[in-house]
């Protein structure tokens, strides 16, 4: 069981801020493939990985990072703080 979090327009496109999934994916990329296949909203939200960022357990990672031990995976656009 992994908790997925969505922020900013990723949250808006998918239509929810948070959900829990069972997955056999071993990397973030595989998880994204599963989500894309699930529903049009996910396909749209994840259509361009270059415009997305991902964090595993609150640390930024690349899309080919392994999911081993991950409890929380968050997807969001490039950050605009400051």
């Amino acid at each position, binding site marked *: 069981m992994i908790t997925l979090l969505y*922020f900013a327009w990723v949250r808006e496109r998918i239509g929810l801020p948070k959900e829990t999934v069972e997955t056999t994916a071993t990397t973030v990329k595989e998880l994204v493939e599963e989500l894309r296949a699930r529903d049009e909203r996910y396909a749209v939200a994840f259509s361009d990985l270059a415009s997305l960022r991902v964090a595993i357990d609150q640390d930024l990672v690349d899309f080919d990072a392994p999911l081993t031990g991950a409890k929380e995976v968050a997807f969001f656009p490039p*950050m*605009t703080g400051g």
Partner: protein
Amino acid sequence: MQISVQSDPFDFGALAQEFADGHTHMGAVVTFTGIVRDDDLGGLDVMEIEHYPGMTERAITKFAAYAKDRWDLGDVLVIHRHGALKPGEMIMMVATAARHRVNAFEAAEYLMDYLKSRAPFWKKEYVNGEPRWVNAKPEDEDALSRWD
């Protein structure tokens, strides 16, 4: 280190004064304050700042600790707001205290560059009632490379 992620406004002047007074063994204090510009595009109604609770504090603490160590700071302060902000309101501030001015300046610039592109905040502007997400700027991403 003083780090706060909050929806409430903060008292910039009082915090800056207190920070400087508390570090008189340091010769140099730099502050930066970011303000929601009140003239941008004319019709900005409100700016909403979304963040990732938990990761935000974690990321800022990491950057601040790194800056403190790299530039030998006496102290560092970071306050960043989230929620709905009106034009003219202060979004965030950083303060750095160092023995030498170059260190205080560089550390403050580093913190700003990292807050801008690596702390999980997202800004949404409502201009004449129309919402739009603020896009990250390529030059902000590029700015990070000077700290490698």
